[in-house]
C-alpha cells in the first residue's frame, strides 16, 4: 500500500491553470468555463460557490480529467501532485481516479447500486485498485462508519441502499469516497437534497472526516452558509469565471465584489406584518385524514389536520420531507381525496375528489409547483400555456385572449415576445414566472405554492417571492405556501403551520412561532438552518451535545 500522509499540509496538491471547458449546444461549442485558475494544498478545503450554470460542477469533475457528455476540456492544464491530468495515459488516470481523487455526488440515492450491499460497494474501489483485500476493506468500512457517526456501524454495511435513510446514505457515500484514503475528495452539492436537520449530520460528518485524515476537498455548493462551515478558502464563480477568491473568514467578513455581497445579503426581503383585523376565512381544512393505498391498508400520511386560511394572507406550511405537507396540498386540491374530514372553500364544503368539482370551484384553487421544468409542457408555446385557462374558463378567443395574455406577461414582468417561445428556451426563474401567470389567468382566490422557490437559485428565488408578494398586494390573492425552507417562511408568511409526521405540531402567527418558547421540533428546525457565521456549526454541535 502506498504510504500517505507522510507529507505535511501546506504542500501544493492540485493546480489548474487557465482551465477552459466547452459545451455542445445548438450544433456549436460554447464555453462553459472560460479560463479558471485554481489551486489547492494538502488538507485544505476549497469552497466553490455560484449559481446554476456557473460551471462549478464542471470544474469539480474536471479535476479527475472527466468532462460530462457533450462537454470537452478545450484548454488549460491540470496538475495533480505532479501528474498532468489532461493528456495522461488512461492507465495513469485509472490509478488516480477513485484511489487518489474521489467524488461524492449530490444524490446518494441515485449513485448507489440498489442491488448491492453498502459494504460491498465500499470495498469495490480499494479491491479493484489492489490496495486492500476484501476483509481489510470491510474492517476499514466499519471503522469509517463509526467515525461518521452512523448508527450500528458494524452492521449497517450489510444493508441495501433503500434500507437506510437519506442522510445515512449520504454519509455512507462519504465513507465510500474515503475507502482508498484519497488525497482529494470532490463534494458536489452533497447536502442540497437533504432536509435541514439531516444536512447538519452530513456536514458535521464531512467536516470531521476531512480533518481526521487531512484530506483536501473541493466543496461545491450554491449555499454560502453551508460552505462557510467547512471551507478554508472560498472561490465565487459566475458564468464560468472567477468573481472573487479568498480566505473563508475574510471573504464572509468583507466581500470585495458586488456579486459576492449580493449572495451574502440574500433573503433581505421581508413582508410587512399583516394588519391585525381578522379577515374572512377562504379555506378551511377540518379534521382531515389521508392515506395512500386505499382505506383499509396503508399508513396515515395525514392525521387530524385542521387549519384556516384567511383572505389575502399567506399561510406557510413547514416540515421536512415525509411530514405530509405536500399530501395536504393534494388533499385540498382533491387529487388525493381524504378518507375523513372536510375541506371548505368560502364556507362551502368541496367535493372530496377533484373530478367531482365543477369548473368554477377548480378555477378558484390554483397550484404552482416546485419544478417549473416539469410543470410546463415543453411542446406548448407560452401563449398557449397561459391562454388555455383563459379559453377554458372564460371562453376567450382571438384578440381578446391575446390582449389578456399580454397583460398577464406584463404582470409577471416578462416582455411580450415571450409568448412565442417554448418553455425549454426559458431560464428557471422565467419558467416559474410563467407558471405564476398560468395560475393567475384563472383569476383564482387561492394559490397553493408547493416549494416554488426551492429549485431556483437564491437570487432568482428572492425575485419570485417579491413578485408573489406584489401580486398579493395588487390582486388580493391568498397563498398557502408549502416549504421546507425557513428563510422563505420568514420572508413571506403571515402565519406558520409546522408539520411533523402528518400532524400539525405548531400553528400561529409568524412572530409567535418564530419567537421562543418554541415547540421542541420547531426549535430543532429553526436552529438547523445554517448561518453565515463560520463557527455556527461547531457552536451548534457543542450546544446540542451539552443539552
Amino acid at each position: 500500500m502506498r504510504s500517505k500522509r507522510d507529507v505535511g499540509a501546506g504542500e501544493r496538491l492540485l493546480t489548474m491553470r487557465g482551465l477552459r471547458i466547452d459545451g455542445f449546444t445548438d450544433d456549436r461549442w460554447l464555453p462553459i468555463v472560460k479560463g479558471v485558475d485554481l489551486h489547492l494544498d494538502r488538507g485544505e478545503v476549497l469552497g466553490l460557490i455560484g449559481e446554476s450554470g456557473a460551471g462549478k460542477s464542471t470544474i469539480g469533475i474536471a479535476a479527475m480529467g472527466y468532462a460530462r457528455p457533450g462537454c470537452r476540456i478545450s484548454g488549460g492544464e491540470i496538475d495533480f501532485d505532479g501528474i498532468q491530468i489532461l493528456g495522461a495515459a488512461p492507465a495513469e488516470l485509472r490509478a488516480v481516479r477513485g484511489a487518489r481523487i474521489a467524488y461524492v455526488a449530490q444524490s446518494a440515492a441515485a449513485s448507489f447500486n440498489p442491488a448491492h450491499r453498502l459494504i460491498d460497494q465500499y470495498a469495490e474501489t480499494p479491491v479493484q485498485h489492489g490496495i486492500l483485500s476484501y476483509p481489510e476493506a470491510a474492517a476499514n468500512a466499519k471503522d469509517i462508519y463509526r467515525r461518521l457517526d452512523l448508527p450500528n456501524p458494524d452492521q449497517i454495511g450489510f444493508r441495501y441502499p433503500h434500507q437506510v435513510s437519506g442522510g445515512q446514505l449520504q454519509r455512507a457515500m462519504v465513507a465510500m469516497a474515503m475507502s482508498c484514503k484519497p488525497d482529494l475528495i470532490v463534494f458536489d452539492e452533497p447536502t442540497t437534497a437533504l432536509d435541514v436537520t439531516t444536512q447538519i449530520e452530513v456536514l458535521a460528518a464531512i467536516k470531521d472526516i476531512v480533518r481526521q485524515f487531512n484530506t483536501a476537498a473541493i466543496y461545491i455548493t450554491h449555499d454560502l452558509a453551508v460552505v462557510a462551515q467547512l471551507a478554508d478558502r472560498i472561490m465565487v464563480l459566475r458564468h464560468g469565471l472567477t468573481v472573487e477568491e479568498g480566505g473563508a473568514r475574510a471573504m464572509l467578513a468583507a466581500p470585495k465584489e458586488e456579486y459576492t455581497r449580493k449572495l451574502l445579503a440574500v433573503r433581505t426581503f421581508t413582508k410587512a406584518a399583516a394588519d391585525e383585523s381578522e379577515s374572512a376565512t377562504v379555506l378551511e381544512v377540518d379534521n382531515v385524514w389521508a392515506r395512500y393505498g386505499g382505506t383499509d391498508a396503508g399508513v396515515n400520511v395525514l392525521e387530524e389536520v385542521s387549519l384556516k386560511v384567511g383572505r389575502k394572507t399567506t399561510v406557510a406550511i413547514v416540515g421536512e420531507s415525509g411530514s405530509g405537507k405536500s399530501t395536504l396540498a393534494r388533499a385540498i386540491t382533491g387529487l388525493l381525496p381524504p378518507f375523513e374530514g372536510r375541506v371548505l372553500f368560502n364556507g362551502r364544503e368541496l367535493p372530496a375528489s377533484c373530478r367531482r368539482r365543477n369548473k368554477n370551484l377548480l378555477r378558484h384553487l390554483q397550484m404552482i409547483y416546485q419544478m417549473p421544468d416539469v410543470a410546463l409542457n415543453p411542446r406548448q408555446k407560452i401563449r398557449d400555456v397561459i391562454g388555455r385557462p383563459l379559453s377554458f374558463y372564460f371562453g376567450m378567443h382571438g384578440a381578446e385572449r391575446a390582449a389578456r395574455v399580454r397583460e398577464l406577461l406584463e404582470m409577471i414582468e416578462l416582455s411580450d415576445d415571450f409568448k412565442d417561445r417554448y418553455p425549454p428556451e426559458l431560464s428557471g426563474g422565467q419558467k416559474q414566472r410563467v407558471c405564476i401567470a398560468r395560475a393567475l389567468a384563472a383569476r383564482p382566490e387561492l394559490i397553493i405554492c408547493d416549494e416554488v422557490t426551492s429549485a431556483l437559485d437564491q437570487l432568482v428565488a428572492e425575485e419570485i417571492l417579491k413578485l408573489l408578494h406584489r401580486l398579493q398586494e395588487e390582486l388580493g390573492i391568498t397563498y398557502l405556501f408549502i416549504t421546507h425552507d425557513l428563510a422563505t417562511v420568514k420572508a413571506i408568511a403571515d402565519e406558520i403551520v409546522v408539520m411533523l409526521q402528518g400532524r400539525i405540531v405548531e400553528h400561529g402567527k409568524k412572530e409567535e412561532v418564530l419567537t421562543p418558547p418554541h415547540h421542541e421540533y420547531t426549535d430543532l428546525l429553526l436552529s438547523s438552518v445554517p448561518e453565515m457565521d463560520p463557527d455556527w456549526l461547531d457552536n451548534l454541535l457543542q450546544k446540542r451535545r451539552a443539552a
Partner: protein
Amino acid sequence: MLFLKEFAKAGWPAKIGMAVILVYLFCAIFAPLIAPYAETEVIITSPWVSAEESGTLLGLDQLGRDLWTRVLYGARNTITIAIVITLLAFFIGMAAGFFAAVVGGLTDQLLSRIVDIIMAFPTLFFALIVLSILGTSVPVLIVVIAILDSTRVFRISRALAMDISVMDYVEVAKLRGEGLWWIMRREVLPNALTPLIAEFGLRFCFVFLFISALSFLGLGIQPPAADWGSMVRENAAAITYGIMTPLVPALAIAILTIAVNLVVDWFLRKTSGLRDEV
C-alpha cells in the same frame, strides 16, 4: 421546412435512404404511367423468357408477364397497403396506450392483459389462423395485421405516456378540469411524438415484410394483383434453372427495408440526443 433544413445536415446514408424511398414512392404513385405493359398482360405464353429474347427490361415471369411492370405495380400494391396498415395500427395502438397510461388502474390492467394475450401467440401463426378463417380480402388483411401490430405500438405508447402522465403539467391539466381526450391529444401526444415517428418507420418495415411473408405463403395479396412477396413465391422455381427472376422482387423488398432503416437511424440519433464521439 425545419425538417428539410435539418435533413440537409444528415449524413450520406440517410440521404441515400431518403432518395431510395422517394424513388419507390414515385414508382408506386406513377406505376400505370411508367409501366410499359398492363399489370396482368401476358406477352409471350411461356415462362421466364429472358430480357433479350422478349425485348423487355427484366424479362418475363412464370406466366409470361413483364417482370418490370409487375415490380412497379407490386410497389404500388404493397406499399399502399403497408402504409394504411401502419397508420391504422398506430391509431389503435396509440389511442389505447395513452388511454391506459392516463387512466391507469383497472382499465390499464385490462388493456395490458388483452395485449399480452395477443402477443403470446406468434404473429405469423395468429395471422394465418385468422386469415384462413375469414378469407383473404384486402380489408380483412389490413384489419388483421393492423390489430396484431397495434399491440407493439400499444406497449411503446403506454410506456411513453406513463412517463409523461406523471409530469406536473398533466396534473395541472387534470386540476384545470380538462377532459381525457384533450390530455391525451394536447399534453401527452406532442411529447411522445418523436420516438413514435421513429417507431413508425420501423413498424412500416415490419408490416411490409409481414405482408410479403403472408403473400409468399399464399394468404396475402391475391393473384393476379402484383405483389413482391407472391412474385418471389411464384417465381421461386426459376432459381433452380439459374434464372434470376425471383431475386428482382426480393431485392426490391430488401432495398426498401434498408432505406427506411437508414432514415430511421438518422432520425433516432437526431432526436434522442445521442451523438457519436466528437
